[in-house]
């Protein structure tokens, strides 16, 4: 099998539909006004998953040297960790 860096149109379309679905889910969750740790966790996980699709599939880093995956995915983990710490600090005051 050859390495298809940019994947197939079919795969891209499926991912795009899933990304749109996840966005509508995020909207629904935000509209419920449930400000809880679980809601925030779900929002963060959905956002993280969406980001990883952009990084691995759309930016084609899945087939890049591992360092670039580590830097970009690591950035996203770090950002969400900082947001989580600040959020926890906010509700525990």
């Amino acid at each position, binding site marked *: *099998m*050859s*390495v*298809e*860096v*940019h*994947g*197939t*149109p079919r795969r*891209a*379309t499926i*991912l*795009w539909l899933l*990304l*749109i679905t996840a*966005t*509508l889910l*995020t*909207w629904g*969750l*935000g*509209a419920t*006004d449930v*400000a809880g740790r679980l809601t*925030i966790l779900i*929002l*963060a996980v*959905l*956002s993280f998953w*969406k*980001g990883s699709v*952009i*990084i691995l*599939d*759309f*930016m*084609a*880093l899945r*087939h*890049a*040297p*591992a360092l*670039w995956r580590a*830097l*970009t995915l690591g*950035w*996203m983990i*770090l*950002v*969400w960790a*900082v*947001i989580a*710490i*600040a*959020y926890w*600090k*906010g*509700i525990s*005051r």
Partner: protein
Amino acid sequence: MENTRNTATLAAAPGPRLAGDLAIWFFILAELLAFGVFFAAYAFTRAKNLELFNVEQQALNRGAGVINTMLLLTASYFVVRAVQAAERAASAQSARWLLAAICCGLGFIGVKLTEYSAAFAHGVSLSSSPFHMFYLSLTFFHFMHVILGLVILLALWNGARKGRYHAGDMNGMETGAAYWHMVDLVWLILFPLVYVIN
């Protein structure tokens, strides 16, 4: 394994390959770092002004934020299709996908401008509250990146129309595409952070 690789098509990369110019990837890292610092500053300022942030966040037009998220995701998808078409040397198709992506980007700009004008009409300004300061500066910083991204997509569209990109020369197309995806990636954190989490 080696044998299978040797018999693979010419267009296929033999091993790990970074799509696009190395310089754009360093630039993308610098941008991600800048946005990361901005996000952290927002999150900690919010933790100190929880009630204010929660009340003023409710006044944001979340529907506009959702529409803009979908526009950016769709534009990114169209850019992926443009890259795939260019790889098949289908230049005209590639140009059409890029034009569709540009339309989505312009849609984002339109929605954002409507949102800003409504906010300004309600007296929202950089100095009206810490939340407004962050909301305006963060979204405007991102807005400027969308505009630069659109300029890049226009250049790619022009190149695609002239048949500049093909499997043997994808560098320009992949470089521009990577920048656009970065703009999308940053929004995917900005949107839940500023519009949703309360």
